[in-house]
């Protein structure tokens, strides 16, 4: 037993704030929970293989705390281990949002005064993706989480093409309406189908010579600004996005491009 006797202990946080480890029970313990499946029948071999998986993840003190047969030839593991490699916060590249949040009145006023006509926005869920709720949340009047969609702004004229729209139909519509911005939603991500769909759209726009005429934006639960930029988009919006964030971005980007 160790009791600190009469000396009140004051524990120091050993590592400086800018390098951090995962926190389980105590500062710096590095504790991480993992789970995974191996194609091996439950037993000592599988368990040792499970421990090896944890070691391959760089975990110190790997503990398999559960192994469950998923049938005759697969085993599921739950494990806890310590990741003692710190994240260096000073060297973190956080994809910064290149716009600031504005309120609806400001947005409407900016567009009225500086552009003199609404920004034309065309949106669609492309390819075979039939998930419209996210796109509707951004575009439709009703909006999302109490925040109205782009339709509710005088600053935007919105055309929502709905779901399962082929890229070529979207591009044709953008051309027809002389759209200022094209908004694409991608929700299904199995086997990275969203990546190929999104890439194909960029290529098509480029081939048609339209890429520079529009602000190109994508969104969906597995998208982030960083990924969007990587794919050749101007911006990307992930889960929980509010329509007003998209509105703020669009107005700033479109006005900047128009030089007004």
């Amino acid at each position, binding site marked *: 037993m160790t009791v600190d006797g009469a000396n009140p202990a004051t524990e120091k946080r050993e590592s400086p704030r800018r390098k951090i480890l995962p926190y389980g029970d105590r500062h710096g313990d590095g504790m991480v929970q993992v789970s995974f499946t191996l194609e091996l029948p439950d037993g000592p071999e599988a368990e040792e293989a499970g421990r090896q998986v944890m070691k391959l993840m760089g975990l110190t003190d790997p503990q398999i705390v559960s192994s469950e047969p*998923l049938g005759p030839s697969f085993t599921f593991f739950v494990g806890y281990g310590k990741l003692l490699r710190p994240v260096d916060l000073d060297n973190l590249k956080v994809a910064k949002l290149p716009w600031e949040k504005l309120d609806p009145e400001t947005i409407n006023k900016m567009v009225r005064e500086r552009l003199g006509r609404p920004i034309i926005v065309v949106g669609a869920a492309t390819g*075979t993706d039939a998930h419209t709720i996210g796109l509707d949340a951004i575009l439709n009047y009703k909006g999302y989480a109490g925040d109205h969609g782009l339709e509710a702004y005088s600053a935007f004229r919105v055309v929502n093409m709905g779901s399962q729209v082929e890229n070529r139909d979207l591009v044709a519509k953008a051309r027809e309406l002389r759209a200022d911005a094209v908004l694409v939603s991608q929700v299904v991500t*199995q086997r990275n189908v969203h990546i190929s769909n999104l890439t194909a759209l960029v290529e098509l726009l480029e081939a048609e010579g339209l890429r520079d005429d529009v602000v190109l934006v994508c969104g969906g639960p597995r998208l982030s600004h960083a990924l969007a930029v990587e794919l050749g988009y101007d911006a990307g919006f992930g889960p929980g996005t509010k329509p007003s964030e998209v509105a703020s971005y669009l107005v700033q980007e479109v006005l900047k491009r128009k030089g007004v």
Partner: protein
Amino acid sequence: MNSPGRLRLNLDPGTVAACHESGQAIAEKVWKELEGLSTVAVERAVARLFGIDGADSAGLPLPNVIVDALSRSGGLEDGVAIHLAKACLETGGEPQDVAEDVACGQLDFASIPDRPRRELEDKARELARRAIDRILDRRKEREELISRLGQSRQPWLYVIVATGNIYEDTIQARMAASQGADIIAVIRSTGQSLMDFVPYGPTTEGYGGTYATQDNFRLMRKALDEESEKLGRYIRLVNYCSGLCMPEIATMGAFERLDVMLNDAMYGILFRDINMERTLIDQRFSRMINGLSGIIINTGEDNYLTTVDAFHHGPQVLASEFINLHFARMAGIPDEQIGLGHAFQIDPWLESSLLYEISMALLVRQCFPNCPVKYMPPTVHKDGNIFFAHALDTMYNLVASLTGQSIHLVGMLTEAVHTPFLQDRFLSIQSAKYVREASRGLSDNFSLVPEELIEKRAQSLLQSAKEVLEHVKDTGLFAAIEEGVFAGVKRDRHGGRGREGVFKKSARYFNPFEEILSSRSKAF
């Protein structure tokens, strides 16, 4: 059928009866309006029923080849049955031979000499009866397997596999069965519902699901039959009888002994923007086949609850269930095969949300006492916090058991992340099994306190559903959908995909299945 024990809502029987009346009137009116029409999909299904299978050298399935050929030659309006009968009589071959000959250009429908109507109809009837016998054989096979192997007590646990690759799917399906699943659904790849043909052969490259093909059905059926033998209980197989090929898939499912089919009268219209008339005609023929094959259909009202707020839109779900029920009955399906859809989708953070869920779940159960309701798990209010999602599913599991649901679709903790991994399915089945067994008998121990929240809520949902149904009856279903009565989606009667596949039947039109099955269904 599973039962909600002593949990009985005090519902006004007059209101329930009024809902049935409206539901039936709505379905009948639609059918009157559409009686003179058929679709390319119905005709392709007839071709498949006559035994036509395979694809041409360009990969186009032979049923499409036949229908396209007839369409070009102008004979489609008579229905494919008459023309195939004629060709068979002419060539002495089977429909498959005819189709192959047409495909390679050796046979041209237009050039086959006509025969007396009677002779053609008799040949068509003969071919149809062979198809019906083939289907009834598979049905009997199912009944024998169930009586020999037995099956789980309800609620049956239903899980999906969706790797996109049928071979990987069979592995996962076997594992799921061995973990305790009673029903396995192979989810379809995105986009298939909008394809106006059914792909041929086994497939390995779907997105968010696996293509529905007859080979894929067969491969999975075989895997599950083996597993059923191993486990000593019959494992049911599900696929999607929806989209532009609904009647063909019904046929394929009947031939490959599927047990359950997602099959809704309006889903295609609302969620896939398929033309109204096309969908409503297709659903009828597909349901005649599903009814014959002993397949349980599952309707898609659960989807409304994922699209609009579940707390406020209960009445339209119930209304839609009455309509779907009567469409199905009209197609000759007995209630025991009509698995109406319902779901647990109210915002979990709403105070007393569980009481509202119980209320609606009981209501659906009680309005359709002989229907094997398919109860769907929470999905919309899940996010990447897989632990919370697992807790939410656990409460859903309890409600499924307490309210006596028959088919219990097992929710996945990773719903908001990916189509289920092997381990996700295991964990979800484990917890559903636990709740099912731990709560055995619970509903026999409780009775409802009259006029409290659960009962009052159910009464008001029923009353509102009745009003919705009366409105739809008055305006007609087409106009109601144009108004956006269901799932907040508005569709144009003359818009939507697949409209070009609807055609007016000629005076010579003949479909032996319609004739035989409608008289059969009277006997049910």
